[in-house]
């Protein structure tokens, strides 16, 4: 078990008495995604990951919005809330803020989180409630049968954009960093080990953790991440970010650019000290932001792993501290005192 599991993220959540199994985390509901959908791999990764946390299953809640991905909670034998389109972060915020003893997960899609739900997402990031947000990014609207999404590439031809989409997509990592996120990571549906390693850290972080998971929709956007999976291309574009490690991949390295930002250069051409050493705890998000721009243009280079993991007090923690402080300072509220607290007078 990773050491970070003793981190604050799970500190307030009761621990399971016995060791749990992956099977216990499977619900009795039949899984209903298209055969081949990347969601299956993510589900299996999560189901097999959960026991490792050692927290009570009944203190785990998955909240989702609407979309193919948002069916996820049905398949986990925990508490679950399949809510409405885009609003899962808001609902989860109320839950997590009032129940610090729960491990609250948000499952969302690129449409759910970034289109209709964009505002709740950015606010939960800056607010830093103790949530683990898994954003399944398939760069398409799956459930409504294939319209372009806010992460689709410009020029995307879909049912709603027969001549190609016009708008520049969001880079979810950049957006999250711009929204004061404390924990931001990216991983891939097909790389279970990496996915789980990222989840491990996300859970350990107390506050809102955003994990973008590239997910293949083989029906409406097949192969969107093929370049990161194809052995021919994958190593040349995938930049694995590891805390404390120099950022190198294939025969390339990343260093600070003189015009700001970062740049990829042949490893052989730079001195060791010039190579950026990744620091997820850098209080200044600027470098993480710069790294997030490496895949501009799309798939030039794609960093995966944890971009940023910086602690600050979580909203729920602060909220509960205020409640506690108010109670300590003035004593537990008494209804009689409250009602009689103003200017009163007696008649008769």
């Amino acid at each position, binding site marked *: 078990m990773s050491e970070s599991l003793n981190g604050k993220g799970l500190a307030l959540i*009761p621990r399971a008495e016995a060791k749990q199994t992956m099977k216990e985390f499977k*619900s009795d*509901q039949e899984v209903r995604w298209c055969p081949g959908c990347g969601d299956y791999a993510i589900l299996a990764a999560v189901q097999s990951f959960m026991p490792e946390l050692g927290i*009570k*299953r*009944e*203190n*785990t*809640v998955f*909240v989702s919005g*609407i979309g193919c991905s948002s069916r996820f*909670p*049905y398949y986990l*034998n*925990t*508490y*679950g*809330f*399949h*809510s*409405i389109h885009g*609003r899962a972060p*808001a*609902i*989860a*915020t*109320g*839950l*997590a*803020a*009032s*129940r610090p*003893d*729960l491990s609250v997960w948000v499952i969302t899609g690129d449409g759910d989180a970034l289109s209709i739900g964009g*505002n*709740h997402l950015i*606010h939960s990031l800056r607010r830093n409630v103790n949530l683990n947000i898994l954003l399944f990014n398939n760069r398409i609207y799956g459930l409504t049968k294939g319209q372009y999404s806010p992460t689709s590439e410009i020029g995307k031809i879909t049912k709603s954009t027969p001549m190609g989409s016009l708008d520049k997509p969001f880079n979810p990592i950049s957006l999250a960093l711009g929204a004061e996120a404390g924990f931001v990571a990216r991983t891939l549906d097909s790389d279970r080990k990496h996915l789980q390693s990222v989840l491990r850290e996300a859970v350990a972080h107390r506050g809102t953790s955003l994990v973008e998971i590239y997910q293949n929709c083989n029906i409406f956007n097949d192969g969107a991440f093929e370049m990161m999976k194809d052995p021919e291309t994958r190593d040349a574009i995938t930049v694995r970010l590891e805390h404390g490690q120099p950022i190198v991949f294939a025969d390339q390295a990343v260093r600070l650019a003189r015009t700001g930002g970062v740049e990829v250069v042949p490893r052989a051409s730079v001195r060791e000290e010039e190579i950026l050493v990744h620091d997820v705890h850098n209080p200044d998000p600027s470098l993480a932001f710069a790294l997030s721009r490496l895949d501009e243009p799309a798939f030039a280079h794609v960093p995966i792993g944890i971009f940023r993991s910086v602690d600050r007090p979580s909203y729920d923690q602060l*909220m509960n501290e*205020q*409640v506690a*402080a*108010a*109670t300590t*300072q*003035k*004593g*537990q*509220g008494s*209804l*009689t005192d*409250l*009602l*009689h607290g*103003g*200017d*009163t*007078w*007696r*008649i*008769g």
Partner: protein
Amino acid sequence: MTKQVQQLDRVIIRFAGDSGDGMQLTGDRFTAETAEFGNDLSTLPNFPAEIRAPAGTLPGVSSFQLHFADHDILTPGDAPNVLVAMNPAALKANLSDLPRGADIIANSDEFTKRNLAKVGYTESPLDDESLSEWRVHSVPLTSLTVKALEDFDISKKDAERAKNMFALGLLSWLYHRPVEATIRFIESKFAKKPDIAKSNVAAFNAGWNYGETTEAFSVSYEIKPAKLAPGIYRNISGNQALAYGLIAASVQAKLPLFLGSYPITPASDILHELSKHKRFGIRTFQAEDEIAGVGAALGASFGGALGVTTTSGPGVALKAETVGLAVTTELPLIVVDVQRAGPSTGMPTKTEQTDLLMALYGRNGESPIPVVAPATPSDCFAIAVEAARIALKYRTPVMLLSDGYLANGSEPWKLPEIDDLPDISVDFTTESNSDDGTFLPFKRDAETLARPWAVPGTPGLEHRIGGIEKADGTGNISYDPNNHDLMVRLRQAKIDGIDVPDLEVDDPSGSARVLVLGWGSTYGPIAAALRRVRKAGGQVAQAHLRHLNPFPKNIGEVLKSYDKVLLPEINLGQLALLLRAKFLVDIISYNRVRGLPFKAEELAGVIQDVIDSE
């Protein structure tokens, strides 16, 4: 000089001035003195448009009306007996409400050429004949105040600012109000600025002395304390009572209260009030918008809290989708709508009853929810507890329809005995409710049709809920046509079956043929109107609905036992539509949508007309 003292049974005073003149504070303090003295009272603050308009202009006028009496009263009064006008704009804006013969106390210092011009007076009405039908008292309030404060170490501006305290002192003398509490209040309000405190007390005393010693006012007035039911009283506004009611509901339910809200006039004060009471375990969450506010409240409900969201008209529209989710997931939730004048942004500070049909039908699909509405400011307390009772017992969102008039208006409130408050605690489900040991989240209670409420953290009852149609019992996703029809009907039947007290009819004559029905904040004006009509010999019954959905079981019977049913509403006939549809009764509607409460006199006329047309 000995002055004459005249006995009155009731008085209506309106304080009016510029937004910056502190009229709300003045009114509040006069109200507090009056409450302490033991009169019954009712208040109506009237704010200007949201932004402070330039000083001295008509849109910048702020007023506070207070009605107090030696008997119980029901409204803030139709027409002021006394207008305190701090500047020409205040006079101009309020004159049309003033009956002939009423007193006007005008701050003559402010009737300068410039100020007169701002509101279109070419000459000062204090100087010409235009006010001859009123009793005008020109008092140089500003300069008298400045004079009185000459020896204080404060700026001229601060001295001038104290003029409202001078006015308050004068009025306190005029109506024999007790002053100690006001002095204490001033001292504590400005505790950090002792000079200001002292000068304000001095201004207040100067105002009192001005009345006592000068000849400007030869008569003062006495209004005996009212004979109200014995008990301990305090003055309370609707928003405050609502906040207290929610706290009481949380205590009585033994559940922590979670408020998810987004500021909006005139509901914001509930958020403000609740945020002060964290020691009750209350969590207040100012969300990024109304949707997040209600979403967070629903999330907290899912976690076992008493989830509440507060808003006003346009905010309710935004919450509709989430309320629908609460309907179908059958979770408790209280949605408070402090109605304001619409449509759209409308007139945010004005009152209206135009959200009833939205409360009932403003969501997609068949999405029934209970609706309750308080009748008076203090009733906001009880109705909040009632809303919580229904929400928790039936696992349903409940819409609570207050309005701007109730929210900001105030009245003396006889404090309830805590022991008399209902126990509304709930039993969370902690064990399987089926033979095979599984948990059936949609297996209903046979009597209430409520589903079990098992909160996260309960071992063995892990389950998933959501917005898609659910199979009866198991709650699994179901697209089965007959199941859907069944669930639509079950959800409806659950709401229809809510236990609601019978509608009580007040008919002192016992032989009225006309019933006046009301709901929400029209209670006071209707009752006041009925007093007039009855005093004049009219026989007429009154009934007031606090439950708009479902209706009390006996309502059909009540409606049908009168020849005529008159229903005044501050909308175009929304409750009338519901009653007509349900009972096929030809309700007579009286509707005025002016952003203001009805006047008792206006309603008395309407009622008399209906009686006469018998």
